[in-house]
């Protein structure tokens, strides 16, 4: 009988792709192919570009009543004007800024607070976990819209208050999801391996746990941001937004009185809101499906 064959037959080529691919890269590739993700991405992309390039793309100052009153869409006012003669196209562009700014800032707050709370509760367990979770539950029960109303009623309208109110009350779901992930990952052998090596707790959390929790966090965030945008638009609609910034909701709110005579005043801002929210939801759904399992 033949003798020992070497333990590793280096002639055996691995069936590898030409370059190393990480789980993240695989996930991105899977998402990129999906039609819903592509569509969502396009919609979001348009919104982001509009927000970033608003000063360049907007021909007029959205607040200045320079144009004819209630003019239908036609050059130079591509989306028409409102009762005060303000250009709607510029308004929509600057409105994108507002929406995205609010979404981004709130998202940042939620990410930081939610991760902190979720990771601590999941990793420490015990009474720390109990206390944090009770607190989280209280927050989950709070209706955010009315909380925002109360804040505005007490402290007056303003973007900063809005961001704070929403940011401080929206992190509950993310904290729960992250806590659940930490609980399950904590038992995985690669975490045990890190402990065996003598890795300090901080390193375990940042190098082992968080990178693997990222996909779930992204999913929750994307859907949350869509909600936040809608909340902001709703508040603007009621006239409770920041008077110094243009908001899609505000534009739509102002358009109510002119529904019959100036269709463009409600259609364009409404379409813009829909585009942003739909885009986020589509991308969020696509991510949920692709990243829903383990990476």
């Amino acid at each position, binding site marked *: 009988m033949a003798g*020992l064959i070497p333990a590793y037959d280096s002639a055996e080529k691995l069936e590898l792709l030409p370059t190393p691919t990480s789980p993240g890269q695989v996930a991105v590739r899977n998402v990129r192919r999906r039609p819903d993700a592509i569509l969502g991405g396009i919609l979001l992309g348009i919104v982001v570009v509009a927000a970033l390039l608003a000063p360049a793309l907007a021909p007029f100052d959205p607040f200045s009543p320079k144009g004819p009153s209630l003019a239908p869409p036609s050059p130079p006012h591509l989306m028409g004007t409102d009762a005060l003669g303000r250009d709607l196209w510029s308004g929509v562009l600057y409105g994108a800024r507002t929406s995205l700014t609010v979404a981004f800032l709130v998202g940042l707050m939620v990410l930081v607070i939610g991760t902190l709370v979720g990771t601590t509760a999941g990793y420490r367990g015990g009474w720390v976990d109990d206390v944090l979770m009770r607190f989280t539950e209280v927050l989950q029960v709070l209706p955010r819209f009315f909380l925002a109303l109360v804040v505005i009623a007490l402290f007056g309208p303003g973007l900063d208050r809005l961001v704070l109110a929403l940011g401080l009350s929206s992190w509950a779901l993310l904290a729960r999801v992250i806590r659940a992930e930490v609980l399950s990952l904590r038992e995985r052998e690669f975490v045990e391996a890190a402990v065996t090596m003598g890795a300090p707790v901080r390193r375990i959390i940042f190098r082992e746990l968080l990178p693997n929790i990222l996909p779930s966090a992204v999913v929750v965030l994307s859907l949350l941001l869509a909600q936040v945008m809608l909340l902001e638009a709703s508040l603007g609609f009621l006239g409770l937004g920041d008077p110094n910034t243009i908001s899609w909701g505000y534009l739509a709110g102002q358009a109510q009185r002119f529904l019959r005579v100036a269709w463009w005043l409600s259609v364009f801002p409404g379409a813009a809101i829909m585009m942003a929210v739909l885009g986020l939801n589509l991308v969020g759904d696509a991510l949920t499906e692709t990243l829903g399992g383990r990476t």
Partner: protein
Amino acid sequence: MSATILDVSNLSVVFGKGSAAVPAVRGISFAVARGETLGIVGESGCGKTATGLALLGLLPSSGRVTSGVARLGNRDLLAMSPRELRGIRGRRLAMVFQDPATALNPVLSIGRQVSEAVAAHNSELDRAQAKKRALDLLEAVGVPDPAARYRDLPHVWSGGMRQRAVVAMAIANRPRLLIADEPTTALDVTIQAQVLDLLRLVQGETGAGLILISHDFGVVAEMSDRIAVMYAGEIVETGTAGKVMETPRHPYTAALLRSVPDLDLDREQLEVIGGQPPNPSLLPSGCPFRPRCFLSGGRAVCRETAPRLDGEKGSHQAACHFAAELAIR
């Protein structure tokens, strides 16, 4: 001469579609006689599980049978509609799978599930009669005090007990053929012995044919009358258990037998098969075992022509161009 219960010819199973299609089973043929145990042994990716699933009509949606005939009695299993298969499964044909936790519904009591297995093909029995049959079955498979445990939910039973319940459900209607896919892999060794004994007992009493699918050579060797060794979707060797284990004719079988650490032998180093089991979507040309074969020696025919099983169906067959050389070494 014992009657043949199952006769499979040229079975092929493919997963996926179009350019991403992966051949899991590539034209295999075998037969099982009354009261006989056929052991199908191989490693992951060899197609043994797909074979069992194909026969039962339980391939996942991504898999389909692309060729073959599987005659059970006088009907072709592979040509049956889902409805016809449902009529047969549990009656003529039954299965035992690896994980009893997934075979049993976690929210129904075990007793009820066994009764259901009885009632499903015996509509003339009423509830009480079905329950009595279920209790008899549970006792037959060695569950102590079945009456007291009839209402237990699966999670309170141990793995070995659950597997016994699964066997009870499988034999409820005295099937002609039992397919067991890794029935004891998830169980402790001493419990494994009990369950294997049970399967043997059950087979002896009902005269059913048993197809035992496993990666564990020891289990297969002990239980089987005949063995089929699978590699890369094909049967590379088949014959009676004694012959295949003692005088293997295919280099894969021979190498595998010598690489497994044996409880009875002291060896300093184990013989190793280099490389790893092939990826079904990237099979080498010619013989699929060639890259790892010690017998091939780089000879061209191994790279060019895929070997077929030699000899007569039913004899000790091997799919190797140089099987004769193995005997001499």
